[in-house]
């Protein structure tokens, strides 16, 4: 089981080398992945799974696209 993982803006430093095919443990939540990256959860404001806003408790599945963002604004 692998996912495509992206960490944006200030979170880019936490991006692992194998981000395009990041290995998943069965039942992994977003929170579990964030913890494994060594990324403090408080720094993650926005979670997207397959282009939809999601939470830390969202369970990931094979082939998912996970995007993690800090607080973002502009326009």
């Amino acid at each position: 089981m692998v996912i495509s993982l992206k960490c944006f803006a200030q979170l880019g430093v936490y991006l692992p080398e194998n981000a395009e095919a990041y290995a998943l443990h069965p039942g992994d939540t977003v929170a579990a992945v964030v913890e494994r990256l060594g990324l403090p959860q408080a720094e993650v404001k926005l979670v997207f799974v397959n282009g939809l806003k999601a939470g830390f408790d969202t369970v990931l599945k094979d082939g998912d696209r996970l995007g993690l963002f800090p607080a973002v604004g502009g326009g």
Partner: protein
Amino acid sequence: MLKILRINTRTREYTFEDLGAYAGLGGRALTSRIVSQEVPAGIHPLSAANKLVLAGGILACTNAANSGRTSVGAKSPLTGGIKESNSGGQFAHKLPKLGLLAIVLEDKPEDGADFTTLLIKKDKVEFLDAKNLVGKLNYAAHDVLKAAYGDKVVTALVGPAGEQCLMTANIQFSDPDGRPSRSAGRGGLGAVMGSKKVKAIVLDPEAKDSVEPADGEKFKTARKRWLDILMGHPVTSQGLPTYGTAILINIINEAGALPTKNFRSGRFDGASKISGETMTETIKARKGAYKHGCHTGCVIQCSQVYNDKNGEYLTTGFEYETIWGFGANLLVDDLDDIAVMDRTCDEIGMDTIEMANTMAMAMEAGLVKWGDGKGVIELLKKVGTKDPLGRILGNGTDFTAKAFGVDRVPVVKNQALPAYDPRAVKGIGVTYCTTTQGADHTAGYAVCQNILKVGGDVNTLGKAGQVEISKNLQVATAAVDSLGLCLFVAFAVLDTADAVSVIADMVSGLTGKPYTADDVVALGVNCLKDELAFNKAAGFTAEHDQLPAFFRNEPLPPHNTVWDFTAEEMQAAKIA
């Protein structure tokens, strides 16, 4: 007390008037009140009856953080409705030093009259021959004015597009670095200035009037808290300063809402190449500046100085909307090409959002291939020349579509859509449709609650709550624009319980009179009422509050949603 300077561009008479019935207003509330009261709604926007109002906000005369935005108002040549176009730059910061809240350009010279430069001094206006500036691009024109009046000179300029009265023409304001880089972009207001044969407005750099707050202690206390609010929010203190507004490229792409190839998809394969992250890395490598303010007093610093490959200055104020429009929407993934397009628009004096959509029409028509950045630059450079093709392109998205028989035309009230596909960000679609301004994201930035989780959180693909969110944001935005504050303060204000009362305290400290959060809201509500009344008199009805049919008929990948609001459903977003 600050005054309103009225200049008759035909007779060359001018008066410094007390505020009278306009007292208590500023920024957008003032421009929209003057336009709605004094400009007949049915007139041709380029006729003598139109007026061009340039105003500072209520707080422009103070040193409150981010209070120096400039509002420009008139009847829009592009939309045919009322327009307030908002810009950075030094203009609103300088106006109070001349004792002014606003300048109103009235009437127009006879046919064949020459362009003038208006030199505004304390208690005096000089009409100067603009022969030395006519036909010049904005940076060159500003250099001429710097040579004459010093590096600190503050200017408002129309480029060749404005001289030709084209509907994409903007007004460029000079920034703190002495570059004419800040745009009152939308709605063709440069054409109104051009129609009055004014090439440049120059504010005397020697003017040094000051306005003391009536209740200095109250103002100072509120101002301190205001600064803390802006510096305490992660968006206004970290995200925007580091990555600029282009930080949005990746997240809007991730959300499947980045309009790509003239609104055919919500994802762009080249997004990472044109992202804020890539821009910041590029700027650092070329020794530009990734933190930069558009006006004195800005603490958010979302602007930047973008250098070319040789380390030479290329552009500044390089915004998300511009990068999206000339990038994803045209399938261009070369950030340097997009930077040249941005600079070219600033030079010729054209709105980047309108021109980017216009280039999409040119691609639909086969004038230039999708993804051909160099071809786009060549086309842009035709505007403002004698080439008739430049005249067509310079009149914007709908005009160009008509000239070439294109039927996929993303406009509302004739103004081109910004950088969020309304099928995947439903709340911003409600704003596009119902704002008085034509398709405009800033008028009610529901991207906050739809995508960014600022000020709330709703399902971006659903309809629930969107009308109410847009309505509330439209009111708040009108208030922010009237105070002269930068709209980006809203990211912090929406998340901070006491922010609106702190703003009210700053106004109260300035005037010495009571001012509450309710007064801030009323400022926005009354501004919108003026604008809606003008548009109604100009012939706009609920039928005009709708997106083009293709948004309803074509599902947008990757979420495959369509636009499903009726115009009637959205009427509640407008102030009754």
